[in-house]
């Protein structure tokens, strides 16, 4: 049952706590968005830019922006290349902010990863073209504070990353 739930690969819901601030009526609780786009390589830049624009409200440093853009690029590129084998398919992206922590979730419903432990080892790649070096997961790990991957062969992959912004 638990396994089934994990394999459903639903995008992370924006279960927001919607409370109103008595003083100025501003929404409190988690801020966020969720979107789905076609897994074409030309959308990789679009995904980076959307997340960068969203997180700009956290007043990130340029370095923090670059770190998140790199991590998003890695996760989305993996979905496009490995998840969907460059044949296209829906790629989901969700972002939320809680306090000074940004959470980014990227998911696909592609082929999934059979041996996740191995896939996440530095320099491990299943690419046979010689053009990939197996650094993607290492970059996500290096540039974010927290990385969590769930995958189910034949069903898809979800990558969840967190980073504290501004201290």
């Amino acid at each position, binding site marked *: 049952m638990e396994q089934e739930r994990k394999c459903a690969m639903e995008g992370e819901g924006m279960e927001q706590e919607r409370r109103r601030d008595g003083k100025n009526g501003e929404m409190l609780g988690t801020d966020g968005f969720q979107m789905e786009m076609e897994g074409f390589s030309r959308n990789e*830049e679009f995904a980076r830019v959307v997340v960068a624009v969203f997180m700009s409200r956290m007043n990130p440093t340029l370095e923090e922006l*670059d770190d998140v853009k790199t991590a998003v*690029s890695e996760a989305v*590129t993996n979905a496009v290349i490995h998840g969907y084998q460059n044949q296209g398919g829906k790629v989901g992206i969700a972002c939320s902010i809680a306090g000074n922590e940004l959470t980014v979730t990227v998911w696909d419903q592609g082929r999934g990863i059979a041996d996740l432990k191995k896939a996440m080892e530095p320099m491990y790649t299943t690419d046979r073209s010689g053009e990939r070096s197996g650094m993607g997961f290492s970059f996500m790990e290096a540039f974010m504070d927290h990385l969590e991957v769930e995958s189910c062969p034949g069903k898809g992959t979800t990558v969840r990353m967190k980073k504290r912004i501004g201290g």
Partner: protein
Amino acid sequence: MNTNTFTYEPRGQMLVIHLPKELDHHNCRNLRYETDLLLSENYITRIIFDFSQTEFMDSSGIGVLLNRYKQMAGSGGSVVLYGAGAQVRRILHVGGLARLVPCFETKEAALTCS
């Protein structure tokens, strides 16, 4: 100059490759085919990557550099780069490429290094 594609500038036995603004999977798709063609038709001993227009690079760029490095090292040639900005330098460093590929500030330095 179109900043979404690669442009190639042969300099005798050196080949300068001007890289796009965003060095990601999308923009790297044709590079392999194009450089392999140039390398097979010309006697090249040094590939010089120009990062001066590049604002973003991810692991796709690392793959490209590493593959060219292996190719050139196999034939006794070398790979160098110049003009890398902050984001690119960080990726090169974390990706372990900074140890393999000498980085220069200017094109002149990259062309004349020994």
